[in-house]
């Protein structure tokens, strides 16, 4: 789909783009609370809401990088707090095998962040986004997948 | 007795050292008193087992070192076998004894042991006793 906003701010500096996969019950609500509390954080993150981190398919993350993300954040309920009792536990278990896949796919694990943010942890959310943004910014743009999407488009995927 | 407590007491390096030597965690003791209740020599100890654990929790290792408790412990493991928290006061006391012996101090001089005893006693008592009292 159409071009996403550029990797540069109006003033010209590099601004990373970060995709966040969050669960509906904890982290999404925590981010909402940051809003209702009028906290401020870096504008680099775009949230995709899922029912549970257990829904996250590793391919989502790879696709996010393919689509120009410089970093990806996954955040859900704290262990033991999952709305679906064990969904986040499943997610975490899956990450173990998943890490290898990411490295195999050439993704620097430093670009991938996992966290737990509960519905009341607005401050944690704000700090997290600021921290992740700064870290990804320091890493610079993610170039490995540059052009990959266009290429696959050419091949008529 | 009055105790002045500071962070350095609670985080006492010597207690941490003792924990390393003995593999015990003094925080585990919840002061139930079972060990003191069951220890056969607790009656003669200046500081009974439960209090030993408490002093260590407070970081006051000297208090215990100066008492007779570690020299009286017979190693019967009654404390350990009934401690609901699985703490071995016996190991703690042995650790403290070792520390002291390694510094070359002891409560029993070999010459103090009555000679007739050495002649008649089972070897195991002598071996064990020397290990415990002399190092």
């Amino acid at each position, binding site marked *: 789909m159409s071009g996403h906003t550029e990797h540069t701010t109006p003033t010209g500096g590099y601004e990373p783009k970060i995709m966040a996969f969050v669960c509906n019950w904890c982290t999404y609500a925590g981010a909402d609370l940051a809003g209702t509390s009028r906290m401020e954080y870096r504008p680099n993150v775009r949230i995709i809401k899922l029912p549970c981190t257990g829904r996250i398919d590793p391919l989502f993350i790879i696709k996010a990088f393919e689509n120009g993300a410089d970093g990806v954040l996954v955040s859900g309920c704290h262990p033991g707090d999952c709305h679906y009792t064990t969904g986040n536990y499943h997610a975490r278990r899956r990450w173990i095998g998943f890490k290898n896949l990411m490295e195999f796919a050439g993704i620097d694990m430093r670009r991938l962040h996992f966290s737990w943010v509960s519905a009341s942890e607005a401050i944690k959310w704000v700090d997290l986004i600021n921290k992740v943004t700064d870290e990804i910014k320091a890493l610079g743009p993610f170039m490995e997948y540059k052009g990959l999407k266009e290429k696959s488009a050419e091949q008529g995927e | 007795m009055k105790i002045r407590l500071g962070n350095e007491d609670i985080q006492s390096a010597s207690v941490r050292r003792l924990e390393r030597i003995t593999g015990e965690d003094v925080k585990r003791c919840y002061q139930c008193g079972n060990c003191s209740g069951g220890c056969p020599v607790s009656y003669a100890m200046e500081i009974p087992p439960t209090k030993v654990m408490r002093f260590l929790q407070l970081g006051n290792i000297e208090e215990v070192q100066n008492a007779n408790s570690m020299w009286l412990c017979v190693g019967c493991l009654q404390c350990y076998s009934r401690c609901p928290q699985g703490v071995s006061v016996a190991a703690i006391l042995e650790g403290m004894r070792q520390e002291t012996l390694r510094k070359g101090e002891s409560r029993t001089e070999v010459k103090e042991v009555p000679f007739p005893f050495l002649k008649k006693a089972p*070897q*195991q008592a002598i071996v064990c006793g020397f*290990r415990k009292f002399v190092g």
Partner: protein
Amino acid sequence: MKIPYYPGCTLNTVAKQFDTSARESASSVGFEMKELAQWNCCGATFPLTPDNVIGLTAPAKVLSNASKEGDTLTTLCAVCYNVLKRTNKVIRDNREKRNVINGFIEEEYDGSVNILHYLEVLRDKVGFDKVKASVKRPLKGIKAATYYGCMLLRPFEDIGIDKAERPTIFEDLLAALGAEPVEFANKIECCGAHLAMNNEEVVTTLSGKVMTSAVGAGAELIVTTCPLCQFNLEKSQPKVAEAGSGYSPVPVIYFTQALGLALGQDIATLGFEKNSSDIMPLLKKKGIA
């Protein structure tokens, strides 16, 4: 059936009667105790602090020697049993320590030997039924206190010879021999152990409690499994009696002496004269000797 046997230093000397009566009895119930060709003192103390690996080398040496003679090892002294069994467990379960220990003793021992106390051999290999069937001189009418002491039982997780707080193995044996085991309060309490060396007061108190509770429960005889228990009880007995609590001494013997007696061995060979308490009046009274 030949079972490798570790006597330990005490049974080689002051507790010789413990050793000889056991060997004799073994042959009467159908097994042979094969003394290890090479052995050393086990150290008589299991180091309670895990950093003391050196303390494990002596028993490890014994174990490694034993492994060359078979897959089981039996022993009589409760202390040896305790030290060997626990050391063996460390070597078996803790790879790191195993390597250190093997380095010291210059052997490659992996903890595979099965340590059995003589009581366990009787219970699990021979069977108390068979023991019972072999009895020629039942200890009929003798109320016997079975004094376990500490080392035969604790720590339960490592030793596991029987239930920690309510063991019965010893009573079961005495019952098989025709005696009447008495239940007494201090049967698993300490006798004072190595404090014999420098604290007579404590030893007299603790041993005194063991004996008064046994005799108070009706015991006419106290049976032990450990030379140190035997020593402490016998040594304390006169003092306890002197203290004027109305306690009157009873014979204290090793369980193997009781066993040999019941299996019909010549009384003269059981080494009762080496005990400092005298069992003969009791045996006469009961019509056994």
